[in-house]
Structures are given as C-alpha cells and as structure tokens.
C-alpha cells in the first residue's frame, strides 16, 4: 500500500509542477481573450469583441500570413527532406555521416542567425555583391513572404530530415524486394514502398508546420521590416504597444495553439502503435542503391551545393561580415578585413552591452534549463512509456502533444501576464523579471518536446532489464544506474545538448522574460541587428555559435572518455547518425 501511495504522490508532484510551469500561465493568458475583466484587462467578464478585433487589419493579416507560410514551409521541408534522406540513407553517396552532421549543425543554428547571415550575403555591398552578383532583386525578395518561407523551410529541414531518415532506416529492403519480385518497376516500387513511411512524412509535415507557426526569430528579424506581418510578431507587438493589449494578444495566442494542435494530433494518431523511433530486431539491414561512379560524384556534388546554399552561405555571410567593421563588405577602397568587430563585441560603444556577461548568463541558463528539462522530461517519458497504459498515461500524452504546440512567445507572454498578477506577486511569490522565471519559462518550452523525444528510447528498454537487476539484488537506484542509465546515456546526453544549445539561441522567451541587467546573449545580439553595427552582431553570432559547437564537442568528448565501452555500444537509437 505504501508503494501505491508513493506512486500517486510522485504523479501528483509532476502534475503540480506542470500546472505552474505550463497549464495555469497559458490558460490564464488565453482566458483573457474572452474574459478581460477577470484579470483587470477590460470591462467585460465575457466578450467576443477581442476575437473580432484580432481578426481584423494588421493582426488578422498576421494570422492568415502565418498559416500560409507554415503550410508552404511544411510542404517544402518535407519534399527536400525526403529527397535528402533517401540519398543519405538509401544510396552510396559519399560522406553520409558528414551530411547527417551538417543537418545537426543546421538544427543548432537559430532562425535569427540564419536570417542575419543571409542579410550579410545578399545586401547590396555585401558578400555576393563583392563577387559581382547583382543581388538587389533577391534582397527585395528576401524582405517579404518568399524570404520568410525560405529561411523557415531551411530551419524546418533538419526536423523533417531526422524523422524521415528514421522511417527510411527502418524500412527494410524486403519491401522493395517483394515489390520487385512481383513485377514492379522502379517507379512503381517507390510508389508501393513510400506509403509505408507515410507516418514519418506526416509527422515531418506536422513538426515543420508547428515550428513555422511558432517561430519568433524570423518574425522578429525579417517579418518586422518586410511589411509581411507574422502572427508571433503581431502578438509581440500587442504586448509591447502602449497600452499593452493583452486580450488581443491572447486571441492570437489561442489561434497559434489551435492551428498547431491539429497537425500534431493528426501525426500522433497516424503514428499510434507504430512509432518510427522503434526499430524491430527483425528488420533487415538497409540495402543501398548503388549509383554509378559518375552519378555518385554528381549526386554528392549536388548535395554539397544544396547544403552550402542552406547552411554554408548564411554562415559564410555572417563570418565574412564579422571580419569587416563597415556597413558594407566592400568600400570604394576595396575589402577591409579586420578583427575590430570581435574586439567591439567585448568592448562595445556605451549604448551597447558587451557579449561576455550575457554569454555567461546564457551558458548558466543553458545548464539550468537543460538539466531541469532532462529530469522532468525523463520522468514524463517514463510515465508515457509505461508498460501498463492507463488514463494517466493518456492524459500525459495528450497534454504533452498540446504543449508542443504552444509557441515560445505564447509561453513568455503567458508568464509575464500570470506571474505579474497582483495576487501572485503580493501573496505567493514575486518572480516577475527574475532569472528563475526565465528558467521556468525556458524549461516549460523545452519539456514537452524533449519528453516525447525521450519516450522512444525509454520505451525501447525492455522492463525485464531493470526487473532482472532488482531480482538479482540491486536497489532501485542501483538498478537505474546500472541498467537504464547506460542504455539511455546517449539519448540523455543528446537531449541535454539539444536543450542547452536551443536555450542559448532562444529569443522569444528570453526577449520577454529576461531579468534587466542580465540579458542573455540572444537578446544582446538582437540589439545590434538593423543598426550600422551589424558587423558586431555578426561577430557575436559567430562567437555564440562557435561556443555552442565547442560545448557539444566538449560534452561528447567527456562522454567518450568517462563512460565504459559498453555504454557507447548501445543506445544509438537516441543519438543522431
């Protein structure tokens, strides 16, 4: 009985944490849309007038634009990701590990960094101009719908790629063999086999759509100056306008959540009972399509050009821009390479902040958020992967799916709205404009996706492994330490790294919840954008990105050095390949 009570208590604690972390702030904020007086934001206890207002003019256009952009991003990301995943996973293209690594790098680069990089590439007088390319047309195109769709598509590409890759890796060659043996030609074989990975394709679309809908980086950097309003930016504007319009912001927040919930749930429904994360032991090794030597070189080159275009060029733009300290890459006297921007990053003009302390703040945030997220996500993943599914597991599942669909900006605004309420600050706890509130917000935004990511690896561990440890004399802790932890170590390390890097580059929540005087790096870098000190922003971006890559390398090196060989032999399902 004592054991049963403990189980219930642990479940209650988890839900209590989630209640204050996600449910109450978001629900309270969304409630303002129809009941502004409840939170002293208007005169009515119940009204639809804010909904009408939110769908008119600038904000209404933002919602329509966002839906259009997200749909296009989903289609583009899935299309390109399918082709690349097939080339990398199912052919003998050169450098397969390199291309997967490049996808990880693309995943780590936040959208605001990519946007910056592209501006550095195509702005008149910048990199491409220096190479003699007339970029004015592209420049104007970039500051509009096409630029936003392009950047968001490249950002969504790695999400789609990893989901589809797993599907393709799990697709044993026996299906192709069966089709070919029964008379199908190559095209019919593809048409026959492709539906088998339909769940992965749908899943990739849902993730890409949700990512595009909730993105703030592009909306903030590109949407704001392109006269193409995006919902996340109009929401931000509604809060930071004077006076702040929380009810209209709440309507936009509800629209953002509601628009991302259906694809995420549809994806989950299609995936039910056939998780793409779990590979059967009976699945045969993938047989790769063998290109001829010439075709192999050609496909590798094409892939290289594509990856250079989506990743190399914006990075190169940011890097080259960071080594010049003028508004333009070239001047009348030619290109002037200099380290001045890197010096300025740490000794800026009086109106700007040095990068050092903010980067340190970001790293501290990263460590706290990644560690907190890992613990909570693991607990939730354990509940999700329970051998005896019950109502609690189903509720957790639905809750996590719904929470993934909550954009960071909605969480951020929900936090400043709820935790700044008078009854909270004066009677419970005053967290407004404090570091703990920012950490809570960032954990809240990371936990749902990480919990679902970890559910795969956790679910793959047979319960008999820890039962065997318990039966053979291991305490609960020793059973976890000696069986579950080694098997999950790789997945846990990658979950931690992913959360850490995403926290450092996160802009939406950081921008809204940072403690004055303790700005994170992403907020500081953003202040350089759109100024004549763009080069300093680029240098700060390059330093931040290099630091993130450095931390990943360091953590992986430590993992390699301190873990036994057996730990590194397994758990690869949770790791990138």
């Amino acid at each position: 009985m004592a054991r049963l009570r403990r189980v219930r208590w642990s479940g209650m604690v988890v839900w209590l944490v989630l209640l204050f972390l996600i449910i109450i702030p978001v629900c309270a904020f969304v409630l303002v849309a129809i009941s502004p007086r409840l939170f002293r934001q208007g005169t009515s206890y119940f009204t639809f007038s804010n909904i009408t207002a939110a769908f008119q003019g600038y904000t209404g256009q933002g919602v329509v634009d966002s839906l259009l952009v997200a749909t296009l991003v989903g289609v583009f990301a899935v299309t390109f990701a399918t082709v690349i995943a097939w080339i990398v996973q199912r052919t003998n293209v050169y450098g397969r590990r390199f291309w997967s690594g490049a996808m990880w790098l693309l995943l780590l680069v936040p959208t605001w960094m990519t946007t910056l990089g592209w501006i550095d590439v195509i702005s008149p007088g910048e990199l491409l101009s220096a190479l003699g390319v007339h970029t004015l047309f592209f420049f104007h195109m970039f500051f509009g719908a096409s630029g936003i769709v392009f950047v968001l598509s490249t950002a969504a590409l790695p999400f789609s790629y990893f989901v589809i890759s797993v599907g393709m890796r799990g697709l044993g060659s026996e299906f192709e063999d069966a089709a070919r043996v029964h008379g199908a030609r190559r095209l019919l074989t593809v048409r026959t086999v492709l539906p088998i990975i339909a769940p992965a394709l749908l899943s990739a679309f849902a993730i890409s759509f949700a990512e595009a809908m909730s993105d703030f980086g592009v909306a903030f950097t590109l949407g704001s100056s392109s006269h193409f309003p995006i919902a996340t930016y109009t929401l931000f504007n509604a809060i930071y306008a004077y006076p702040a319009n929380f009810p209209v912001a709440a309507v936009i927040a509800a629209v953002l959540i509601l628009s991302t919930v259906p694809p995420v749930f549809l994806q989950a429904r299609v995936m039910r009972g056939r998780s793409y994360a779990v590979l059967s032991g009976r699945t045969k090794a993938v047989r790769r399509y063998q290109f001829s030597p010439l075709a192999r070189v050609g496909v590798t080159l094409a892939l290289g050009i594509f990856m250079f275009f989506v990743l190399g060029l914006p990075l190169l733009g940011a890097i080259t821009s960071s080594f010049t300290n003028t508004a333009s890459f070239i001047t009348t006297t030619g290109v002037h390479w200099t380290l001045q921007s890197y010096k300025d990053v740490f000794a800026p003009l009086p109106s700007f902040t040095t990068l050092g302390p903010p980067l340190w703040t970001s790293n501290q945030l990263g460590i706290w958020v990644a560690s907190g997220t890992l613990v909570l996500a693991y607990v939730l993943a354990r509940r999700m992967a329970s051998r005896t599914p019950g109502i609690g597991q189903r509720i957790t599942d639905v809750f996590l799916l719904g929470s993934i669909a909550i954009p960071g900006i909605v969480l951020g605004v929900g936090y400043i709205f709820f935790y700044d309420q008078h009854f909270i600050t004066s009677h419970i706890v005053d967290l407004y404009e404090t570091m703990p509130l920012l950490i809570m917000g960032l954990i809240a935004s990371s936990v749902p996706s990480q919990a679902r990511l970890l559910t795969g690896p956790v679910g793959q561990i047979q319960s008999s492994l820890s039962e065997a440890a318990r039966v053979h004399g291991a305490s609960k802790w020793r059973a976890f330490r000696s069986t579950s932890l080694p098997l999950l170590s790789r997945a846990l390390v990658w979950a931690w790294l992913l959360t850490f890097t995403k926290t450092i580059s996160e802009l939406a929540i950081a921008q809204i919840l940072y403690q004055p005087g303790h700005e994170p790096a992403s907020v500081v870098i953003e202040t350089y954008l759109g100024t004549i000190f763009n080069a300093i922003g680029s240098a700060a971006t390059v330093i931040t990105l290099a630091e993130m890559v450095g931390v990943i390398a360091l953590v992986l090196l430590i993992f390699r050095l301190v873990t036994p060989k057996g730990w590194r032999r397994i758990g690869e399902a949770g790791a990138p390949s």
Partner: protein
Amino acid sequence: MSRLRVQPARVQIRDLRKQFGTKVALNGVSLVVEPGTFTVLLGPSGSGKTTLLRCLAGIEQPSSGEIIIGDKVVFGPGKFVSPDKRELSMVFQDYALWPHMTVRKNIAFPLATSSLSKVERSQRVGDLLERVGIAHLADRYPNELSGGEQQRVALARALSARVGLILFDEPLSNLDADRRDQLRIEIATLTRDAGVTAVYITHDQSEAFALADRVGVLRLGELVQYTKPEKIYRHPKSAFVARFTGVSGEFAVSHVREVSDKRVEVQLPFAPHMFIEATKSENSSYDKDPHLFVRAAGVTLAPVTSTAGAPGVIRDVAYNGRGYEHVVEVGDKATLTKVYAADRFERGDCVKVMLDPVSCFVMNAQEEV
C-alpha cells in the same frame, strides 16, 4: 560440483490474489514448494502463471494473500519485501541480459553486493562460465551471442548469487526445438546440482513433465491441480487438465457403467458394438456430459486383420525419428492423433485401434475446475 550447492528455500503461497483493475489474474492460489524441488507451473496464456511468478519475484505486488520464502514473509498483510531483498534469482523469457555489459559482467552482477572478495567473485564467475560452457565467450557482449548462448548466460547469472530459489519465466520459448531440448537438460542438471529450489513456468506440457518434480496446472488464475507429473498424466483432475496435458482424442459417450472403484465401462461412440473399460477420475464426476479422453500413450495400432480393436483409417503419418505418429479416423470426423507405431501405416490403410484403460478417462466435458 559441491562448490555450487546452496541452502534451498521452501516457498509457501497462501490464498494469493492479484487483480489488475477489474480483471482477476490470480484467484486464491495456495501451494507449497518443498526445498530443493523443481516445480513447474503449467498453463495456457492468461492462466496467471506469469503473474504468480512475478508476484514471487516481487516485481508485481499481489492484492492479498501471503508469500513466505524460506522463513521470511516477503508479502503479507502490511508487508511487501522488494525484489532485491528476497534472495532469489530469475531467468527471464527474453533473457534480460544487459546489452552494455560483457558476459562476464552480466554473470558477476548479482555478486556486486556480496561480501566476496574480488578474487572470489572472479573465481565464481569463472567456475560458472566453465560449467555452462561459455568460458570462451566471457568478454563478448550479449548481441554477439546466439539465443542458446544468451540463455546460458542468463542461467549462469541466476546461479551466480547462490540464492535458495531460482525462478524461470518460460526460458526456452524463444529457442528452436534442438536447442530447447539441449538447454532443458542443462537447466535440469545445473539446477539440481546446485541444490536450489526452482519454480519454472511454461505452457509446454512436454517441457513441464520432463523437468518437474511437481507440476501445478493453472487456469484462469486458479491452481487446478498440483501434484507429481505422473499423477497429472494418469489422473487428471478435470477435463481441462486432461486436455491441456495432451489427449489423442476426446469423444462424447452415452452409456457409462461403473465396474469398480476405479473403472467404468463405456460404449465406444465410433464402434457402437464395442465396450471398453476406462479410468474413473478421482475428483471428477461423469453424470452431466460424460466424455472419453484418450491419451496417445494408450492407443495401439494393429493390422486390420486383427480380431481385436475398433476399426479405423489412417489419415496422416509423420516420421519422428524413433517411429511413426499417425492420425487415425475412427468415426464420422472423429480422430485420434499422435498415435505411435514402430511400423509405418500408409495413408488410407484400414487398421484396428486398441485402447488401454489406464490411459482412457471418463469425465464431464464441461466440468472445468
């Protein structure tokens, strides 16, 4: 050999119940496993045998009842001893070998909390590796082993702790037929050499009879019969036990006449002019829906020219290495299966079928305790 011997544990289970929501998995199971014996719990899927084993191991918590291992109450009113403190070991159906540990480390795992020195532990692991014949695989990882080798590692791990009780959860079900027979013998030998008490669950009656000192037959969460294997085979307590432990044929009979305390006479439904004697079940009646259950061992085939026996036609024949197993049609859609004969009868041959009263039982078909 003596180095492996342990103090075997006595296991007492009293009125054990386990419910999953509204589903009753165990319904008042009581049994005593004597020290050093090999007990097999036999039952179809859903009979509760896995739940019973997991309750013994402490992986599942029963709803009520009592479990005593040795002289220690491990489950009872207000008491639940966790698996690590029950001093038992277990061989899992999927082997449950830790993939990140070598064979040596897997086997040494239960010794980590023992008071043995490093040298003693290493020596014990070495002994076991030799004993189960996998010394050459000591530094391999589980995924580098075959199913049979993995099962040997699981067995060695279970033996390494030298606890008084080993539980076996259908350990042979994932192996092919050849390996199954070989490993079954090794399990029986090693376990008995170690002197340990063993509780083994399976749904395979031949495996149960080959291994067990005592067999417990479970059905729908209840222990239907618990006795020596010979007694279960010769005196099944109910139609369910008879069917589950293997019958060659089952026929509804109409005329049953008691001829002695242990025998009845029945009219064969497929040869109305013939009457045979059959064994009267000790615990079952035959007054409602009497059926004749025939064990394969009690059926003999003779050429059609024989004067004795009921007529039949060979419908199928299979060579099993030692002789032939036949399927004999003895009436309208009534057949006897697995009928052994040293000589082959061809399909379509007319034969005579003789039944041994010792291997024929009369019981109510619907009476399923």
